[in-house]
């Protein structure tokens, strides 16, 4: 269990580092979008 927690923390730090580096390089997609196809109703998930 402790090993699993350590791996999760390590992966989180790696992801943050990689994300920060990628953002600095200016590749980021700035927006998410609203999916439109097949949405079966306003109360349902898009």
């Amino acid at each position, binding site marked *: 269990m402790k090993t699993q927690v350590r791996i999760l923390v390590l992966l989180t730090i790696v*992801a943050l580092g990689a*994300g920060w580096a990628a953002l600095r390089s200016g*590749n*980021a997609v700035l927006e998410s979008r609203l999916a439109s196809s097949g949405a*079966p109703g306003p109360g349902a*998930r898009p």
Partner: protein
Amino acid sequence: MRAFLLGALTGAAFGVVLYKVGATRYSRVMGMLTLRDTKIMKFAFTAIGVASLLYGLAAAAGVAEAWGVVPRVMPYMGAAHLLGGALFGIGLGVSGLCPGTCVAKAGGRGGSKKFVGTAAIAGLLAGVLLYGVLKDPLLQAEVIATNQKPLTLHGVLGLPYAAVALAWGALFVLIALAVDRLTKEKTYEPARPRSGWLDVVRGEWSWVAAGTIAGLLVFLASAQGGYLGFSGALLAVTGWGAHLLGHPLEIVPRINDDIVWRAALIIGVFPGALLAAALSIRSRAAAEAPVPKVLDGAAIGRSFGAATVMSLGALVGGGCTTGAFIAAWPTLSLGSLAMAGTFFVVSMAVANGRMLARSLDLGAAQAAGDHVYD
């Protein structure tokens, strides 16, 4: 056929995770809602954290569009989140189930009462039919907003999605770790000591492992062009069934690959949980003193009613614990934040109210659950 297979495999994998982490267990969910056993809370927070980090990384690296992992955002629907969240929260607080875990529990044959899982599935379908009747009046009364906008947290902050998603993901991992430090987690002793990796897989999974796999599945569902949510899946499976019977529903007018994928997602949960249960190591209590299942009409009725209300609430408010929380919070949708925030407040109030009124005895539920994998 491809859409069905991919959806069913994703659903089966998620069904395995729900069963193995114990999210199908009444005692675990009630423990979460009363803050006396926070394993499922940590599982959900980890899944949100991992999915957010993966979406954020893909967006930061500029590959999100190419990989098809730009998150879908549930629109903000105004008062519908409050009404739907309240209905869903009542169902969750009474039954300890949500749409996905209803199916996983039935597949895993969990609990001490016969046909409760089957009644819950019937209740979910009844909720969909009720929604079909109530949808237009709710739209006319403007409870469900007609002008729905994809409002997001990063949009409100005016920041790039990638930056906010990465920070959001790290925040949820930190919260899961803090909850682990500060609160209790109930342990159920296995029938024999676990030795070797196969036994680790066959025992109840940790919140870290299960949450990480769930987060990965949320991300992979997006990569398939799908979405890991069960209220839309319920609508899809009911609509598909009605279409096959020659009576198409107005709320699901056409059947396309997206509808088939969603329907297969919830269908797949059942065999996934069934397989997980068949291969699992039982608890010591269940091995030493197994409890036979009994027929309890009141429990069947309660399960059907709670699932009906929950299903209706999920469809009105735009999602369930998976679709409006685990898979939705990584998208930073304000609608999902409102929906899940509402149903958690309501379900916690209901569960704690039941405890105060002595209609919920968590200790007894945990003791009983140990004997039958509730």
